[in-house]
């Protein structure tokens, strides 16, 4: 009876250990000293988050700041609450005050990855000081 009990416990313990190892592999434990939204946060958080939710990621903050060079810089903080590293591509297109696309070689696709449990800050710089808004495209890599 005792032997039977032991054989039942063994696979369970093994499975639990294996799960712990799998979850621990490639997982990043992330902490931040910031507990509130930054003063430069912009109210596009929900829309940006929708784009990332499709690839199982979460946008935690979206900021726009004017750099010392006079152009805007966008920063999008992306977190991965899932169990595997996500590889994705993104494109930031900049628009002027009229909503017209500002053509630039800086509107190229860029690649990023975010580890399980980790986060990444995507940054994009406006090509000219006239740019006021941006458009974000996100695509999960194959």
């Amino acid at each position, binding site marked *: 009876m005792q032997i039977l009990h032991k054989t039942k416990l063994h696979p369970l313990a093994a499975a639990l250990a294996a799960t712990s190892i799998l979850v621990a592999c490639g997982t990043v434990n992330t902490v931040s000293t910031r507990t509130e939204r930054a003063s430069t946060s912009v109210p596009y958080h929900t829309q940006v988050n929708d784009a990332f939710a499709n690839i199982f990621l979460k946008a935690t903050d979206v900021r726009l700041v004017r*750099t*010392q*060079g*006079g*152009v805007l*810089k966008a920063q999008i903080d992306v977190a991965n609450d899932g169990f595997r590293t996500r*590889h994705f*591509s993104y494109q930031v297109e900049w628009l002027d005050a009229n909503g017209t696309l500002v053509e*630039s*070689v*800086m509107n*190229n*696709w*860029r*690649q990023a990855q975010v580890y399980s449990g980790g986060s990444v800050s995507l*940054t*994009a*710089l*406006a*090509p*000219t000081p006239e740019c006021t808004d941006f458009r974000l495209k996100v*695509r999960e*890599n*194959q």
Partner: protein
Amino acid sequence: MHFRTLSYALSLSLCCCIASCGSPAKRIETGGPQSITTTSDVDDQDISEAANAMLSSLLELGVLRQAPQQPAVLLIDRITNDTTSDFPIDNLVYAMREQLVNSGQAAVNTTYGSNAESKLAQGEAKRDQFETGERTRIPNDFALTGRITELRRAAGNVRQSTFTFRLTLTATSGPRKGLEVWTKQAQFTKQGTKASVGF
């Protein structure tokens, strides 16, 4: 006889099937997500990302806005490719020039030195100088130099290459003449056993 005809027909249809299984030619976005990714070469998307990283750093810090004249005048000096990958450096340089010159943030002096990019424009300037007797010289603000290097490693079948793009701006006028005023490096590490289509 009947069997032979049937086998010919079958072989022909099999050949047709194999021939049509290939990927048909199509246009894709240069440097876009459908581009080919290799492990041992510099790809379109690497050049685009490097140009973007360099431009972003330049514009964020406002280095060009510190020049005594606006727009700042750039000299394109030597940018060397020290990698085993054969790719045109101009793809990087012209991407940056396009952004900086066309947006009015910089001007490139194409008539400078013995290896001037525009010999005709240089000749015109020399002719003007000869006719007027006045020596006119375009004041240059910065010289752009750079180097692209590569670090290769392998573990079994898995190959890894790190390509490092380095650019430097040296002031050619003003109080910081001769000093490096900006530098930036962008790195891309690629790992895999074979090239793939798409990111």
